Structure formats: structure tokens, C-alpha cells
């Protein structure tokens, strides 16, 4: 390609630093300071991708984060690959590898391009209408749709980079470092406010920093040189922190903002090792100044999407900032003065402008006269009606606009060009403002939405507030910031502005064509391929709400959220529907403003830090002894301890048998423990448990059931009276935090008169449970100074004791139905006491068992597990635990609900035991229970909640909930499974030792 596209005029490009990179497997060169887009353009590459639906060739359209077309895949097939990256935002580095998306086999020849020829039959809503029926065909359709759609590929391997989150608190946050943002930051910092200034670009100054025009001057200097001095000054301010490459993603209520700071993406890959790649900044600002600027509008005409068609402001930026000409034979197409600034930048460097097409009949500004003086033909009152060239624009045709701008008249003229710059005026970037809850108003004169109501302490300044002339921007910024920050001194003495532009504009949302609309392709949303025709179709089909039209046509639903075309969509809707523009409002802009990587969102919470793990003090022993673990809430609990290649079933059968035949040992440290003290502690327990507590003697333990106010079982556990006004409550492992929260709630809000204090002591103690016929012998070896006789230490009682001078609490309580002890000792000693028990139990085959065996053993005894056998719809009566509900107590949490009309129904689901006809058959937990399989539809009576093979009973046992099950003992029911029906009999849920002989056996 040609060499004369690069001009040595830019101080932002380091021409001594050549950078090589690959695009679609071809090596190119650029300079340090280039973006991927500017470097490609300098190499004459415009075609960079294919469009989403029609696979039309697409080129670079813009120069910033609003880019809809030039979205590429970085480092394909590498761990650092990233899809949907805007080429206009990628700063090139040595070794950069980029490729086009959405095209196969290549961007130059793309099979999907056939969709472009099929486009008459691919209108808006085509997928909705066609592929929905018959429903069974969806799977087939989906395969092809997904294959041909596909915007980029997600990485297949772990991300090697490091990410982190930072909290920032500041007095004033300034978003955007354009001319108004720089001024605001200076006024803020110099007046003593701790200020943070962020900008998404790598440089400060916005579009003014490269504006050397004679037609916009501040104090008789070009804006760029005036601004450079300002930037130099503020970079020395102590009160001001400046972050470039930092894009604000979200502006939430109460001035809480999220921003992404890019730290290494511009560095060669080999310089990124061990550095944080991106940071998510969580910013809480007392005041926010939004200075996000504005985005140039494209114009909507037939075939307005060809490679080589760019925003006029982008052409200016490429030549002024990067020294890159986008074309050698340019045409500019505009409805306002902005394009003339671009023209002057091109003229200054001797780049050819074939013509300027201006919608306006009258143009009256100094800059336009200057352009005309340079012998550039201006077609006034004209519009582009069509463009030509498949992979790059090569021609346009233009026609005269009628007076009302609704039709074209006269002859068609064709003009050659290799680049067409379009300018439809400017749209204030109000995205962040509306995210914060701000309300917009519509300004009729120039058809823009601007901030109206601010929901928090914030202000918008500059062109995002609808100030488009340099004079307005500077003067209004000074005025507003003084007021907003309540400062006397603006830090600026006099500011003289010279501007050769005027603000006149001829706004036509959809430019007319000599063809009927059905024959045109005027793109409104480039990324999603929606055209003006689609929007009109949606309106014809009855859609009126902008939100509905958006979803039906997918306008504004791409990764760019329609930053370029949303206003035109609104305009076309109101013109077609004959309504006023402001009436429709806008669609909702949602965070993030530009896409975030998953890495940024998760920060350091990856791998083992994804969620917090809690480990018991005995954890290392379990690991060393081959335990398998299960997650219970945040806890890692030993699940079972396989020996010699045992599977889980074999291990659990062995553990369960050992616990009943001789001795088992369980790490129960995860059970919640709440220390309860105070003179009203007994009364408090009376109110939170269903049974009575006042008469429990000191040194005794009692099982308690806790309900919600709706009468449903909430938690359970054993509570021990340690002293007159001192209890220790145990809760389920998963329920501990919520139980404490609930108890505190009642104490603080309903019963503040009670003198009760609660402390969570779960982590303070290790809890070791030793059970089985030999438990007494083992514990007596570990705790030598304790009388373990049934008289001195009966079931459901507690003793203070010592193990080698270390105090411990011992409870004789049982969750297995065996004689058993629970030793509670300060957490640090947990592991050594556990090891002592193992040593003492060696001769008795003491067997460590995990949660699975614990569940089996308790199921043999019919003990419930809250959350497994209950599901927040079970009352104690449903559980057949009437015995634990005090009839005498006047009130407790949930009592009144136990005799509501619904809770006293006889046909509620009730807990029962289930025995299979074939004792070897083990039911599946969750399986449905029915009585009659011939009935249609089959009535579901309930489901299986717990199911095991009991090695002690040598048969399958299960618990389940069944409608009216309480009165169905002995009845036969059916468990229908995928390929068989299993016959079961309803039984007593206590399968083993109903009389408690094992528990009370003389050992």
C-alpha cells in the first residue's frame, strides 16, 4: 500500500520507536503511541471485520471507546486472549497479535456474507418469528445460529494475569480530562479539595490537546498549547491524583463509582509478569464532576457502513494526534461546522479533499470561508444518497435536498473518494449521569438530551452538559464549578476565546434517498446491523415504546450499547410515529460504560480465595489421614476416611459399624456455639425454644427446637446450663450465623427489657465427640480426674474437667444413639486432644468418622437434620415431635402459628420412615412418593429426604415426608423411578433401639 499516509507532525507518536505487530497473521509496523486502529490505518488497512448479522465488510469508524465495528480478538489461542476489544483503544506494543472476529474463513472472503444477499428475508425480529416454531426444532436452529453468530471467542485456559480491587475516598472526583475536566480539577485541588481526576485515554486533554486550529484559541494561544501549560501545572498539585487509562464503568447512587484502571495492557507481554494488569477502583466521592465530553453522531443514509467511512472527528484525530491520513482522496459529509475543522487539519498537511457535502443551504462561519478559500468544492444543501465499493469505499453519489429535507431532487452526481468523513453533530455522553439516576431533558434547538435533575451531589460540565462551543465550555465551566464547589477564586484571571465556528446545524435523522426505503440499507446500529428499515418495520408492527423497539430490532444492544446510533433510532421513531422527540425518553444506559474483563470484576477472589474456607483446629489431622472433605456452609468438614481404596459406600459402612460395635470419633467443632449470659437467660431461652428451660438444673443439657414466627422449624441443637445465668447453645453448622442474628434481633427489637448477652464462640472451642460402647473406657483414659459413672455423670449432663491442666467442658450427649461424650476444649488444643483420644482408643479400634457416617447413624435413630429433612415448611408437629412443644408456656417464637388453620391440617406432609420391599434397594434422596401410579396426573404425596443402607440393621432405611403420613403406618407406597417402581412401606422413623437401651447400657 502507499507510504504517504503517515505525516511527521505529531508529538504524540515516537517515530524513533518502531513497533511490529500482527493483524490477521500479517506483520505490520507502527510507532509507539499508536493505537491498533491508527497503526492499521497508517498501513492503509480499513477492512477489519464483518458485521454481526449480514457479515458486511466493516472498517474502523471512530477513534475511541464508542467504536462499533473495529472489535477484534487479541492473542487468539493464548491464555491472554480477549474478545470484543476495540481496536481504537488498544495501544500497540511489540508482539501484539490481533485478529478479526465474526468471519470465516477470512475477513476478505467470508461465507456469512451470503446473509447480505439474503437480507430482504432477514428483517427485524426475523429470528423471533422464524425459529420459534415448531418448538422442538429450536435445538437444530440454535446450532447454526450460534455458529454463524459469535462475536469473539472466550479464553479456554486460566487467566495468567493478576487483578485487584482498590477503595478510593475523595472529596471530588472529576471524570474526563478534557478541557473542562482539567479546569475543574485545578479549581478543586487548588481550593483544598482532595481530588481525583480520571480519563480513559493514555493522555490528558481530550480532543483539545491536539487542536492546533487557528479558529479556536484561548488567550491567543492554540487550545493545545494553552492546555499543555494547564496540564503541566496541575500535575504538580499535591491535592490532585491523576489516573489515566482509567475508565469509569458505573456511576451508582450516593456517588459510588466503579472504574477500571488499566496498568499493563499497553506493555509488551514479557514486561507484564508479576504486575497487576487491571484494577477495579471502588470510588466513594463526596462530589462528582462529570466531564465525559460528547460523541460525534454519524449520518444515516444508504450504505453508510462501508470501510473507509469514518466519523469526521476521528479523521481529524488520526491526522492531528497520530499523524495518520485515513485516505488520500477525502470527502466530508456534514450538517454542521465540525467537519470544517477536520477539513482544515487535512488542508494544513496537503491531504486532498475532493468535496464537502453539507446538508445546510446557508453556511456562515469564518472556518467555512477559509475552507472555501482553499478551493474546496462545498455542495450546500446536498446529501449523500449512496456509496460504492465492497471492501473499501470508492465512490459516492449525492443529490440535492428538498426544502423540507424529506426528499431528494435534481440529478445525481457521483464523486470519487477513498475515505468519507461524516458528521451529524454531537451527542452529550450522558451515560454515567443517567446511570446515577439523573434525569435528562430534551433541548429542541439542537436536538440533544442534556442533564436536568441531579440525584446526588454532582454536576456535569463541558460538552456532556450540552456546551459545544469553546466559549460556552470555558465560561460555563468556570461559573458552574465556582458555584458547585462554593469557591471564590476561579484560579483563572481572564480568559479570552476566539472561535471561528458557529453552532448552526440542519438535523435530519434519516436522510432521504432516491430509492424506496425497502431498497436501502441505512445502518443505525452498526454493531448489531439494525437499519432504519428495521425500526420502521417495528413501528408498523405496532411497537411504540423505545424499550420495545430496542429489543425487537436489537438497536443499541451490542457491546457498544449503541453509543453512535441510539439518538438516530429515537429520531426515526418520533419522525415516523409523528411524536415529539422528548416524549419517548431514552433507553436505559446500563453499567458498564465499556465492557469489563471478568478478571477485573473478581480481582483477587480467584482459586482458593474465591470464597472463604473455614477449617477446624483438627483439619490438618484429617488431611494427613486421607479424609475426603465436603463443604458445609464455609466449612470444610471431613466427609469420610477411605482406607485401602475403599469407595465412599465401603468407608461409610465400615465407619458406621465401628461406631456402634466399639468406638467412633467425630470432629464436631463446626457446630455453632453461642454463649448466653444474663439474669434473664432462662426466660430468653423459654421464648426462643419450643420447650421449657426454667427448670433445667445447672450442669444439665437439653435438646431444643427453634421455630420461625410462622411456626416452621428453623434450627436445633443442645443447650447446656453452665451456671445459674450462663448457658452455651449449640446450633447447626450452617445455621450458626443466622441463629445468632435472629436472637440478637429479638433481644434488641422485641425484648430490650431482657438482661441477656450473646457471644459467638464457635471458633473458640474444638469439639470432639467420642461414641460407642467403648467410649467410656477411652474418655476415662484421656480425662483421668473425672467420675464417668452413670450416677455422677448421667446422659444429658455436663462437667468441667481438665486434660493435663487444660480446662475443658465435657457433655454426655448423643447424636448417634450410642453412649457418647463431647469434649470441648480451647481450639489450640483441639488437635492434640484428638490425637490423645486416638491413642487411648487404639485398643478399641477407635474409628474416625465423617459427616456421611454421622448422617447415617442419626438416620438409624430417626433424628432429623434441619435443612435436609425439613425445608421451612415443616412444623414440629409435622416432624412428629409434638413432645418438644410445651403446652404450658404462654408464648414462644412461632407458637401462635402452630394452630393456624393451615398448620393444623391433617393432610400436611409429615415425617415418616420408609422401608423398601427389597432390603438391599437404597432409595434416592429427593425421589417422589406416590400411592397410585395409574391415576393421571399422578398425585405426588411427598418425597424422600434421607436414605442410606444401614450396616447395623442390614437393610435399607429412609426418611421422607408424606401427606398425612402420620396416619399411614404400615401402608404400602410407591417410589416411581426412571425405569422401575420401588415398593415401600411407611414405618416408624426410629429404626434402631427405640427404647434407648444402647444409650443407657451399663458400660
Amino acid at each position, binding site marked *: 500500500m502507499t507510504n504517504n499516509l503517515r505525516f511527521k507532525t505529531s508529538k504524540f507518536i515516537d517515530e524513533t520507536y518502531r513497533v511490529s505487530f500482527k493483524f490477521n497473521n500479517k506483520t505490520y509496523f507502527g510507532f509507539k503511541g499508536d493505537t491498533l486502529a491508527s497503526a492499521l490505518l497508517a498501513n492503509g488497512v480499513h477492512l477489519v471485520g464483518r458485521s454481526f448479522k449480514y457479515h458486511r465488510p466493516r472498517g474502523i469508524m471512530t477513534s475511541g471507546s464508542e467504536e462499533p465495528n473495529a472489535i477484534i480478538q487479541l492473542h487468539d489461542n493464548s491464555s491472554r486472549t480477549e474478545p470484543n476489544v476495540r481496536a481504537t483503544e488498544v495501544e500497540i506494543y511489540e508482539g501484539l497479535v490481533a485478529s478479526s472476529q465474526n468471519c470465516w474463513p477470512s475477513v476478505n472472503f467470508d461465507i456469512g456474507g451470503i446473509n447480505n444477499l439474503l437480507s430482504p428475508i432477514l428483517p427485524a425480529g426475523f429470528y423471533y418469528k422464524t425459529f420459534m416454531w415448531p418448538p422442538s426444532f429450536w435445538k437444530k436452529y440454535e446450532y447454526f445460529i450460534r455458529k454463524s453468530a459469535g462475536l469473539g471467542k472466550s479464553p479456554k485456559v486460566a487467566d495468567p494475569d493478576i487483578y485487584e480491587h482498590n477503595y478510593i475516598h475523595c472529596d471530588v472526583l472529576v471524570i474526563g480530562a478534557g478541557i473542562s475536566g482539567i479546569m475543574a480539577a485545578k479549581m478543586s485541588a487548588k481550593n483544598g479539595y482532595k481530588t481525583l481526576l480520571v480519563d480513559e485515554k493514555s493522555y490528558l486533554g481530550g480532543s483539545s490537546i491536539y487542536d492546533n486550529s487557528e479558529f479556536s484559541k484561548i488567550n491567543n494561544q492554540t487550545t493545545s498549547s494553552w492546555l499543555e501549560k494547564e496540564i503541566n501545572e496541575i500535575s504538580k498539585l499535591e491535592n490532585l491524583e491523576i489516573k489515566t487509562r482509567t475508565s469509569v464503568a458505573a456511576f*451508582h*447512587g*450516593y*456517588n*459510588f463509582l466503579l472504574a477500571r484502571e488499566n496498568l499493563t495492557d499497553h506493555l509488551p507481554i514479557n514486561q507484564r509478569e508479576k504486575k497487576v494488569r487491571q484494577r477495579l477502583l471502588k470510588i*466513594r466521592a463526596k462530589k462528582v464532576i462529570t466531564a465525559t465530553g460528547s460523541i460525534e453522531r454519524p449520518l444515516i443514509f444508504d450504505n453508510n457502513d462501508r470501510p473507509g467511512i469514518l466519523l469526521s472527528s476521528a479523521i481529524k484525530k488520526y491526522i492531528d494526534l497520530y499523524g495518520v491520513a485515513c485516505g488520500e482522496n477525502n470527502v466530508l459529509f456534514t450538517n454542521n461546522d465540525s467537519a470544517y475543522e477536520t477539513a482544515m487539519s487535512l488542508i494544513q498537511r496537503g491531504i486532498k479533499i475532493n468535496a464537502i457535502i453539507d446538508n445546510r443551504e446557508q453556511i456562515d462561519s469564518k472556518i467555512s470561508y477559509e475552507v472555501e478559500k482553499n478551493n474546496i468544492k462545498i455542495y450546500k444543501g446536498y446529501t449523500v444518497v449512496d456509496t460504492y465499493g465492497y471492501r473499501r469505499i470508492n465512490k459516492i453519489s449525492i443529490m440535492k435536498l428538498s426544502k423540507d429535507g424529506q426528499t431528494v431532487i435534481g440529478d445525481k452526481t457521483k464523486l470519487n473518494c477513498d475515505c468519507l468523513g461524516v458528521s451529524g453533530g454531537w451527542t452529550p455522553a450522558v451515560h454515567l449521569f443517567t446511570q446515577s*439516576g439523573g434525569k435528562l431533558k430534551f433541548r429542541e434547538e439542537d436536538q440533544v438530551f442534556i442533564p436536568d435533575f441531579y*440525584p446526588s451531589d454532582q454536576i456535569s460540565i463541558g460538552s456532556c452538559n450540552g456546551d459545544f462551543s469553546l466559549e460556552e465550555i470555558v465560561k460555563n465551566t468556570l461559573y458552574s464549578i465556582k458555584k458547585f464547589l462554593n469557591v471564590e477564586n476561579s484560579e483563572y484571571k481572564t480568559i479570552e476565546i476566539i472561535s471561528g465556528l458557529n453552532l448552526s446545524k440542519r438535523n435530519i435523522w434519516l436522510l432521504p434517498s432516491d430509492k424506496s426505503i425497502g431498497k436501502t440499507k441505512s445502518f443505525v446500529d452498526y454493531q448489531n446491523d439494525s437499519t432504519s428499515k428495521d425500526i420502521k418495520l417495528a413501528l408498523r408492527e405496532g411497537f411504540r415504546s423505545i424499550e420495545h423497539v430496542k429489543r425487537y430490532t436489537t438497536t443499541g444492544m451490542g457491546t457498544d450499547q449503541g453509543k453512535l446510533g441510539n439518538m438516530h433510532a429515537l429520531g426515526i421513531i418520533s419522525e415516523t410515529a409523528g411524536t415529539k422527540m422528548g416524549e419517548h425518553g431514552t433507553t436505559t444506559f446500563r453499567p458498564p460504560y465499556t465492557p469489563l474483563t471478568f478478571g477485573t470484576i473478581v480481582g483477587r477472589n480467584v482459586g482458593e480465595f474465591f470464597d472463604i474456607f473455614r477449617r477446624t483446629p483438627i483439619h490438618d489431622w484429617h488431611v494427613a489421614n486421607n479424609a475426603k472433605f465436603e463443604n458445609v456452609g464455609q466449612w470444610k468438614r471431613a466427609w469420610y476416611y477411605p482406607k485401602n481404596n475403599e469407595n465412599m459406600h465401603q468407608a461409610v459402612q465400615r465407619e458406621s459399624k465401628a461406631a456402634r460395635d466399639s468406638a467412633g470419633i467425630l470432629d464436631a467443632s463446626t457446630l455453632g456455639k453461642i454463649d448466653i449470659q444474663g439474669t434473664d437467660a432462662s426466660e430468653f431461652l423459654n421464648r426462643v425454644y419450643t420447650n421449657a428451660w426454667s427448670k433445667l438444673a445447672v450442669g444439665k443439657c437439653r435438646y431444643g427446637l427453634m421455630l420461625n*414466627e*410462622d411456626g416452621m422449624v428453623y434450627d436445633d441443637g443442645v443447650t447446656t446450663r453452665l451456671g445459674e445465668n450462663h448457658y452455651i447453645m449449640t446450633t447447626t453448622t450452617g445455621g450458626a450465623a443466622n441463629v445468632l*442474628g435472629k436472637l*440478637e*434481633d429479638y433481644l*434488641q*427489637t*422485641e425484648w*430490650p427489657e431482657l438482661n441477656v448477652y450473646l457471644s459467638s464462640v464457635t471458633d473458640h472451642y474444638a469439639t470432639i465427640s467420642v461414641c460407642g460402647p467403648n467410649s467410656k473406657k477411652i474418655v476415662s483414659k484421656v480425662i483421668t480426674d473425672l467420675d464417668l459413672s452413670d450416677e455422677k455423670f448421667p446422659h444429658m449432663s455436663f462437667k468441667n474437667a481438665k486434660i493435663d491442666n487444660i480446662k475443658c467442658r465435657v457433655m454426655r450427649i448423643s447424636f448417634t444413639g450410642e453412649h457418647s461424650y463431647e469434649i470441648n476444649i480451647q481450639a489450640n488444643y483441639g488437635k492434640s486432644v484428638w490425637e490423645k483420644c486416638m491413642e487411648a482408643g487404639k485398643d478399641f479400634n477407635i474409628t474416625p468418622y465423617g459427616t456421611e457416617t454421622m448422617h447415617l447413624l442419626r438416620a438409624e435413630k430417626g433424628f432429623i437434620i434441619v435443612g435436609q429433612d425439613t425445608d421451612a415448611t415443616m412444623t414440629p408437629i409435622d416432624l412428629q415431635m409434638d413432645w418438644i412443644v410445651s403446652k404450658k408456656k*404462654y*408464648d414462644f417464637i412461632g*407458637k*401462635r*402459628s402452630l394452630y*393456624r*388453620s393451615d398448620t393444623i391440617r391433617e393432610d400436611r406432609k409429615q415425617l415418616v420412615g420408609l422401608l423398601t420391599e427389597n432390603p438391599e434397594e437404597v432409595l434416592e434422596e429427593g425421589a417422589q412418593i406416590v400411592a397410585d401410579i395409574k391415576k393421571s396426573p399422578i398425585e405426588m404425596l411427598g418425597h424422600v429426604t434421607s436414605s442410606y443402607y444401614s450396616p447395623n440393621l442390614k437393610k435399607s432405611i429412609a426418611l421422607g415426608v408424606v401427606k398425612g403420613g402420620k396416619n399411614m403406618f404400615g401402608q404400602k407406597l410407591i417410589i416411581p423411578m426412571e425405569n422401575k417402581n420401588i415398593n415401600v412401606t411407611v414405618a416408624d422413623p426410629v429404626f434402631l433401639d427405640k427404647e434407648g437401651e444402647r444409650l443407657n447400657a451399663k458400660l
Partner: protein
Amino acid sequence: MFLINCPFCGEREQSEFKAGGEAHIVRPKQPTELSDDEWAEYLFMRKNIKGIQFERWNHFHGCRKWFNMVRDTSNDQIKAVYKMGEKPPVK
């Protein structure tokens, strides 16, 4: 994300708090005296209004105290916070 002025700790991030539903619903002193309908009214019925709402909040990851909040649900503006047992401020 709200910035909530805990009456005990001062301004803290919303992530430290838990919302606890409508405020000023007093648990009946004598539930057994209530009809099913009256009990259901206490148990289930809650206001969900667009506008000024009185709510209970708990500084769960902080001082763990419960307090009341007056919030405009239409724009999430917190109008007042006050301790349990205190009368709501007259607006």
C-alpha cells in the same frame, strides 16, 4: 450503593448492612388471644410503597445493632436513621 449513617458507628458502606423489612411492626404481646386473621396480619402483611418507607436495618458486619431508617424507595434517598425504640422523625 448506599452510604448508611449507622446511629452507633457513623457512615459506612451498604455492604456492611442487612435490610430487615418494614419497621414499627410490634410483635403482639398476647399472640394466643389473636384470631387467625389478626395473627396473619402481623405475620405476613407488609407495605411495599413507592415513596417514603420506614425500614429496619442491621449493621450486620459492624456493631450488629438494629436501627430504623426512613427511605424514599422511589429514589433511594435516606431521609433519616434513628435508634430502636425512638419515635420516627416527623417529616
